[in-house]
């Protein structure tokens, strides 16, 4: 049986959160940039 290794587990869960939030954030930013462009084009 493998003991410990929690640092890998935390790393994995942390990475998952990081990647998902960054992607979500990038979507939100693209959304904001589009809104700005929409306003300018009017």
């Amino acid at each position: 049986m493998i003991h410990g290794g929690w640092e890998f587990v935390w790393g994995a869960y942390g990475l998952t959160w990081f990647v998902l939030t960054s992607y979500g954030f990038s979507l939100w930013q693209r959304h904001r940039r589009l809104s700005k462009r929409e306003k300018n084009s009017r």
Partner: protein
Amino acid sequence: MKSKVILIFLILFFAFAQYWGLVRAPADRMMGDVYRILFVHVPAAWNALLLLTVSFVGCLLYLLRRKEFWDRLAHSSMEIGLVLTGLVLPLGSLWAKPTWGVWWTWDPRLTTTMILFILYAGVLILRQLIDDPVRRAKISSAVGLLIYLNVPIVYLSVRWWRSLHQLQSSPSTMDPQMVLALRLNAFALLGLAVFFLVQRMRLLKREALIEEKESLPPPLPRGAQS
């Protein structure tokens, strides 16, 4: 407004599933606590494959029906599938190091995933280079189709080429708590992925609309016409 509520719910559900995986599921007899990585790794892999399959369907239906909707579906699911594939790879490494003692092996799944990542990244780069929306949709659908056809062949060939380890525990031998944690995580991630997908498709639609608006509106018909 509505999407914010849904998002908060999805995040809470995701956090709950992760809590279940980290705390409630018991330690594995062989792997100890390290196996908890699987609760993020495996769902990510499943969902990545699912999204790439969706993009295949999108490509196919675009070529058959020529409706922009299918191209937006193909593009969005490809992008999110690529993000998840990019997540699966380092998660796999984090799993491989404590269990197999190395960060990377030329295992068929790892290798296939890596090639998959490069292939789909290529299509997204390709999309950037084509200005005309109709041509872009046609070309990238054709390429997306071929790539998806290649995935099983790549997998098969890499497996024959070097089959080292096949670690796959079937649910029947697993603790029911573990099965539950795995399923919870899979569905939580699926929820987020679908949310992203819908948002991404909306963005694409808005972008197309804005571009249409920004182009000088066609002048109104006037005067005598032939």
